[in-house]
Structure formats: structure tokens, C-alpha cells
């Protein structure tokens, strides 16, 4: 298959082949097409994909790309859900999958230094014998990489109690768009000067490429109890979450699956979710044995006050693992039902959960879609899943409209656009719903302080309508139209 002719790209490809060798560079269309997707509905094909093995190679790649004025996008496992790791403007994709070594573990100080391509769950595997683990646990943790987690500030079910990725990162090594290698933060975690790690985590690859990460490791809890609360109405389930929150009970995880979704999951996994229920809550408490018993009893009390039909407690690790398998593989299960789905990521105040779910139901009815709900109820992070056929232009347009309506409602309730998936190219055009021109001006200046030519991950976070210098690079000619326009 032939590839597009572009003198700058051709020259860059040749130089990258010299720099890295043919086994670490992809240039053929049939290879590149595999990198034009992530977990979102967006697309963006790179012109070349490279697989560096060292920070110095990353720096050299960045310098070459800068010389040819070609944009760069970093990529981990490509499991992202907002188009963050897509080459919206073409250019060089730096795939970090071969920078996947755990460089150093200190179990005493509970720190690990890892390369960005290390798979999230592999960090835990490397330290679990010492009773430690890496707390952020996105559903894709068996595949997603820590570099992607850092770029997106990934969450997961247990971040309700333990915090998102940003709370577990103490130091980073960065490669800036001019190839300079910089270290920020420190092993202790108490920054000197500004909290630059706090800024970089979640910056979606728009400020720097991250080549080394120092993470905090957490101690496994002495006791854990997993509860499955079963409800006959969604309202009762969501009211239970609101009350658990309001009463100051702090489960480590509090996930909700509505009846339609759990039936799809059951068909696929047989996790033990009762098919005739309207909603279930998957709740977990961890800590000292004494605390776990008290918290579990308090949760059971709230569930029963809100008409839970039954509260089951996982009797052993395999029952617990099965319940979590059902939760974490739910998106895979949904893939069997419709050719496409659109996963939203809005966040609302927990106190508004019942009304938000009622509204989502109404929006689904209005557009004739089935909208499943499987989400991090405990922190108000909704994941309505609009099931549709992307091959049907009208359905695609309706799915986008329904999604936008839901997101706008989240904002009306005092919420936000995205809780853990990132803005990427999927939600960038909605950003003006939340941010003023002054906010964008400041964000743009911070962006430009790191990435003045927008050579890193152009076309992300900032709405194209706001300019923000995002389309100044060579790839500008290939910036696609936003689905929201």
C-alpha cells in the first residue's frame, strides 16, 4: 500500500529510520492504520510511528520532528476514551510500549520509578509480595499504561477513597518540545517551588512527553468487604449513594450498574448480578477489620432504608473478583450489543444523582437510544453509554446531540465535562461551556510556556474555535472537523 507523499514527512521518516532502525519505526499505511484509533469514536492517523527505548531517543526524535515542523503525539496502550492519543494533525506518534521497564522499587519508602509504557497492573504485580499496590485502577488497568494514566489523570473505582492518579505521582522526567530533558518533583513528594507534577498530570500530552514516572505505592488493607446491593428502582439505588455520601460513610468504591447494563454484563460474564433487578450498587470497604465491619454495617443500613431488595456480601476472593470482573469488563460486554457506543464522563454533585439519572433516561427516550449506566456513583462520575450504529449518519448525529444534552445537564447541576477520561479531541468544543475567554487565555499561556509551537499533541483540550495556537504546526492542513460542529 502506498503512503501519502509529503517532502517533510518523507525526510523525517528517513531520519527516524537512521536514528532508531527499521524495527522501531512504522511508515506503511497498513501499519499506521492500527494507530489511528483509541477507545473513543474519534480517528486520527499518524504519518509515522516510532518506538523509542530510552529518554535520549525520545529527545532525539522530538528534535528531529521540531526541525521538520512536524507535530508529535505520545501514546501508551491506546485505551483512552477521548481521542487524547490520536494524531489529530498527523505527524509522529511516539508509542511508549517499548519503554516498559520498572526501573526501581523501594518498598520501605513505598516508591517505584517506572517508564511510561509499563502497564498499570504490572506495577502492582511487581510489588504485591511486599503487601503493596498502585492505587489508581482504571477499568483498563490490565492494558493501559502508566504514561497514559499520568497524561489523562486516570481514575478508577477505588479512586473514591484513594484519589486519582495525580495523588499518587511524586516526580516526573519530561522531554520538552525542543528536546530538553527536565525532571520535576522529587522522590519525597513534597515539591520545592511550584507543584509542577500537579500541573503536568492530566495535561493530556499537550505540555511535554513523560519519559519516567515516580509513583507512590499504597499498602494493601488488612481487611476488605465487597457488597452487592440490589434494588428494584434506579431511584432507590441513586438515593442510597447520595445518602451514603451525605452521612459521611466512606466506602473505598461505590459503583452503580443499571438493570439493562447488568443484564448485558451477565450475558457476557456471569458475574452474579441479578437479572431481574433495576440497579445494583457494587460497594467496597477496606481498612482495619474493626473499621470494615462498622462501615459495612452502616452501608447495609442505608441500603435497607432505601428499599434495597437484598445486600449480598462476597464470601471469598473469587466471589469478589467475579463481581469486579463484571464491573471492569462491562464496556467489552456492551460492545457485543451495538456496533458503536459513546461513553460520556460527566461529573455531578453526589447530592444530585437521582435527578441526573432520571434526566439521562429522558434524553435516551427523546432520541430513541438505549443509554446504559455503569459508573463511579460514589464520586458522581457518570458514564452514560449511548448505544448506536456509527455507520448511520443520522444515528451518529443523534448520539452526539444526546450526549451533548446530557453533558449540558451535568454542567447545569454544577458539574463538569469529564471526570477521568480527559477532554482530548472529543470534548474540546464543549470547553467554552465551562471556561471563559480569560480562563482560556491563561491556559493558553501555560500551554505556550511549555509547548509554544503547539508541536505536542495539537488539537487537544482547546476548542479549535478558540485558536489557542493549536493549528500553527505543519499538520494544520489535516485537522479534522469537530464532531460538534
Amino acid at each position, binding site marked *: 500500500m502506498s503512503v501519502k507523499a509529503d517532502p517533510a514527512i518523507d525526510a523525517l521518516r528517513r531520519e527516524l529510520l537512521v536514528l532508531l532502525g527499521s524495527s522501531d519505526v512504522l511508515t506503511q499505511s497498513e501499519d499506521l492504520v492500527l494507530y489511528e484509533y483509541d477507545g473513543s469514536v474519534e480517528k486520527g492517523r499518524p504519518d509515522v510511528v516510532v518506538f523509542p527505548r530510552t529518554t535520549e531517543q525520545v529527545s532525539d526524535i522530538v528534535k528531529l520532528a521540531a526541525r521538520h515542523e512536524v507535530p508529535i503525539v505520545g501514546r501508551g496502550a491506546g485505551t483512552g476514551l477521548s481521542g487524547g492519543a490520536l494524531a489529530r494533525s498527523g505527524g509522529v506518534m511516539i508509542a511508549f510500549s517499548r519503554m516498559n521497564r520498572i526501573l526501581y522499587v523501594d518498598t*520501605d*519508602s513505598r516508591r517505584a520509578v517506572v517508564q511510561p509504557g509499563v502497564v498499570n497492573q504490572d506495577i502492582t504485580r511487581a510489588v504485591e509480595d511486599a503487601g503493596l499496590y498502585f492505587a489508581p485502577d482504571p477499568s483498563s488497568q490490565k492494558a493501559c499504561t502508566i504514561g497514559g494514566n499520568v497524561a489523562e*489523570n486516570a*481514575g478508577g473505582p477505588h*479512586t473514591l477513597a484513594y*484519589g486519582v492518579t*495525580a*495523588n499518587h505521582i511524586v516526580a516526573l*522526567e519530561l522531554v520538552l518540545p525542543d528536546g530538553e*530533558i*527536565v*525532571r*520535576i518533583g*522529587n522522590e*519525597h*513528594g513534597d*515539591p*520545592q*517551588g*511550584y*507543584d*509542577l507534577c*500537579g*500541573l503536568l498530570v*492530566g*495535561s493530556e500530552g499537550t505540555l511535554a512527553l513523560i519519559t519516567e514516572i515516580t509513583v507512590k505505592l499504597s499498602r494493601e488493607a488488612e481487611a476488605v468487604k465487597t457488597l452487592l446491593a440490589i434494588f428494584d428502582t434506579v431511584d432507590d439505588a441513586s438515593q442510597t449513594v447520595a445518602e451514603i*455520601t*451525605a452521612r*459521611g460513610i*466512606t466506602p473505598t468504591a461505590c459503583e452503580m450498574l443499571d438493570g439493562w447494563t447488568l443484564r448485558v454484563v451477565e450475558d457476557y460474564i456471569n458475574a452474579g448480578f441479578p437479572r431481574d433487578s433495576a440497579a445494583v450498587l457494587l460497594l467496597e470497604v477496606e*481498612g*482495619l477489620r*474493626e*473499621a470494615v465491619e*462498622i462501615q459495612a454495617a452502616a452501608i447495609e443500613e442505608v441500603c435497607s432504608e432505601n428499599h434495597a431488595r437484598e445486600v449480598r456480601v462476597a464470601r471469598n476472593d473469587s466471589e469478589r473478583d467475579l463481581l469486579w470482573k463484571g464491573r471492569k469488563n462491562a464496556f467489552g460486554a456492551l460492545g457485543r450489543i451495538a456496533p458503536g457506543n459513546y461513553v460520556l464522563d460527566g*461529573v*455531578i*454533585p*453526589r*447530592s444530585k444523582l437521582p435527578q441526573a439519572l432520571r434526566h439521562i433516561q429522558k434524553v435516551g427516550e427523546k432520541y430513541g437510544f438505549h443509554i446504559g449506566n455503569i459508573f463511579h456513583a460514589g464520586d*458522581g*462520575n457518570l458514564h452514560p453509554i449511548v448505544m448506536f450504529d456509527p455507520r448511520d449518519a443520522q444515528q451518529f448525529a443523534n448520539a452526539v446531540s444526546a450526549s451533548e444534552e446530557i453533558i449540558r445537564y451535568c454542567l447545569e447541576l*454544577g458539574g*463538569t465535562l*469529564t*471526570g477521568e477520561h480527559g*477532554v482530548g479531541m472529543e470534548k474540546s468544543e464543549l*470547553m467554552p461551556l*465551562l471556561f*471563559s475567554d*480569560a*480562563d482560556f*487565555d*491563561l*491556559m493558553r*499561556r*501555560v500551554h505556550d*510556556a*511549555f509547548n509554544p509551537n503547539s508541536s505536542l499533541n495539537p488539537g487537544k*483540550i482547546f476548542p479549535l474555535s478558540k485558536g489557542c495556537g493549536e493549528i500553527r504546526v505543519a499538520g494544520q492542513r489535516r485537522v479534522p472537523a469537530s464532531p460538534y460542529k
Partner: protein
Amino acid sequence: MTTAANVGVRLESLLGADRVTGAAEDLQDFAIAGLLPSAVVRPASAEEVTQVVQFALKENLSLIPCGSRSKLEIGAPPSRYDVAVDTTSLQSIAHYDAGDLTLAVDAGLPLRRLTEILAEKNQFLPLAVPCFESCTVAGVVASGIDSSLRLQYGTARDFLIGAEFVDGAGKLCKSGGRVVKNVTGYDLHKLLVGSLGTLGIITRLNFRTFPLPESSRGHLASFASVEDALSYYKIVNATGLPLANVELLSPEVASIIAAILKRTDLSLSRFAESDKWYVYVAFEGHESVLRRIAEELEKHAREGRAQTHELLEQTADETLGGMLREAYEWLRWSAPQVALVRIVVPTALANDLAEFARIAQTNSLQHALLVRAEGVLYLALMASNSDEAALAALRNAVRDIFLAAREKKGHAKLLHAPVTVTAFAAEPPPHGLALSVEKRVRQAFDPHNIFAPGRIVGAA
């Protein structure tokens, strides 16, 4: 044209006379490292803050935001200081959803007042910080001062979920939001923690709040040597028990606490033996959890060669816990001249503590050492008089501590020192060539360098 002489008058015409102070005796209260502003302005709304910043931009004036001024001396001396922006008139609570445990509070609200409001809903903000009775919410965040609850709840960065502030372009900006989970846009609000007013003037902060613990207790153990105390400190930290605070007190710190308590109705007789090292542990939760933790601490103390060990009764615990929360406050006044240094090293070992102590001794200075939660060290270097030799000793010791901390891949900063020491002892810049990044971030927020110029080394 605005001059030092007429800046107050110009500001009065902008916001009204009741918002501006130019009287010399009042300005003295706003001194930083011996520098006085030409005027103090007290905006009563975010819009007025915006007006002040736009005025400063037009007139090329430097601004230093402040709250109760309890921690104004943290940071390097400013290179310019024209106007103090007193945010204590910004006191409203814009949003409090107790059911969602989220809060938006204006910059100048006293933390004490906020604590009372939250307590009505059985909630609190885990900012157990010094000068608790007077400090403002934004002052706590901007100063980056340690909370004695950081072990359990983290630092402000962990529960600050959004902010509004006026940037160096004179615009009211926001970052984050009012929900507990949010990755929309850059987390600019995290940069405000410890930024010492150099990035903007905070007008409002959004927090996640927490349920008040059912109850809390404290445990105290004493040791004959620093090695035994440090070993126990580390064992306790490694138990995995959910602890709110663990602090190691040198004999000198214990003596200072005992002396302070002697002047009050409160007393902690345990501190009478001034040659002992102490480890204090605080923990929270249900009674059954407290019992379990207390039992385990007693066991570890016995096995760890503690000379005395006991579960503190509630009043004694509140007294000692309160004293440790205020350590910054009393350590800095513990001798005629004190340099209080905060030191962060990856893992504090006995020989690290010995080295810091040796630096004090080499310079003929008394010292008091507190190993706070997560291994943050507070070292008070104490001179018994204010003569030039004593000040020179403080300068040398501070410089050596900075270098030693850096050698150990850590860093140190001055929390308090005589002016001549502060001016002399420049903090070494951060490791790893991040200096240029710091500067660029600062310039992005404050392109015209009007906010607290010089206060963060490396960012100026």
C-alpha cells in the same frame, strides 16, 4: 503618574478611602523582610481585586496578596513591594453542598470561622495548621504550610478541587470546579498551593470537605536515644495502621513545649524529663478502631525500647496535638534569634538528623528538631543573642543546611529568620533543570512580574 507618595491616594480614588491604608504605623504590620508597602488596599469583592490588579498593571506596581499575615515571612525577600492586597474582606461562602461534601469559600474567610460552619454539618477541612485562630483559608493554601493531619488526609493539593483568582493579565480566572473528580482543563489551582502569592491573587477556593471523625486519641512514647525513637517512628509508620499524625520530638522540643505549658493552666508532666526523645501518634475513628490502634502502639512501644509509653487522656492529647499543630508559631520565638528551617529529604535517617544537629553545634547554636509526619523536618537554629556573631552563625548554619539537604537529594526552606539571615541565605534552586520551567510557568501567570516578585527562588 503614580509614585510611592501618592499610590494610596490613587487607590482611594479607585475603591474609596475606606478600602485603603497609607499610614506609616499601619504599613508596619505588612512588612516583609524589612520592606514596607506604600499602601494597603482591602478589596471587598473579586471585581475589586481585578480593578486593583489592572491598576497595578497600568501603573507598574508590584502587589503582594495577604490574609491575616501570620505566615507572611515564609519565602525569599520580595524584590519589589508597592502595595499589599489584604484579602480579609472577602469572606463569603459561595457554595456549600454538605450532601456532596463540597465547598467554595472566599479567600479571606478565617479558617477558624470556616471550621465552625462546617462543624454544624459534622464536617471539616483537614487543615490543622499553625496560627489556626487567625489565619485565612487562602493564606494557608498560598503559604503551603504543613498540616498536622497530612498523613491521613494529604496536603491541600489533595482536596483543593478548584479556585478563582485574578491573574497577571488582570482577569478573573478559574480552574477546576466544584465536584470531587474533574480532569477538565489544566489543574492550575494545584499550582497555587505554596505559590506565595506569585501566580495571582486568590479570591475563592473550592474544597472537598470530610466527615468529622467520631473520636480521636493520642499516644506518647519516650526514648533514651534518637536511634530508638527514629526506629519506633519508622515501625509505627510501616504498620499500615490508619494514623492521623506521627511526630518525633527532640528533647529540646519537648523542653520548649513543657516551658510553654508551664505558663498556662495546662501541663504535660511527661515532658519534665528533658533528655528524652518522644514520639507522638494521633489517630481517629470509632472507639473499637481506637482501641485496636492503641493496643498495637503499646505493643510496638514495648518492643521498641520505649522508656515510657501511654495512651493520653483526652485533655492531654488535645493539648499536645494543639501544640504540635502550632509548632511553626512557637519554634520561631523559642530564642532571642531563631532560624526555622523546613527540610525535606527522601528518607530521614538517624545520621541525617545527626548531621543537621552537627551543623548547629559547629556554629555554636542551640537547636530543636521535630520530625513531622511523612518525614518533614523542622529544625530551629537558636541563637542566644542578637549580636553580629550570632547572626553570622545563623547565616552559616542555614547555608550549610541548604547544601546538606541538597546533597541528600532533598531541599530546605526558611520558614522564619532574622532579616539579615533571610536576605543572605538564598535557597538553592530546584534539582533537575526545572528552573526554566518554573520561570516560564510564573511568566504565563504573571507576564509583567507584578505578583510578589522574588518570593520564590528560581521563579523570579
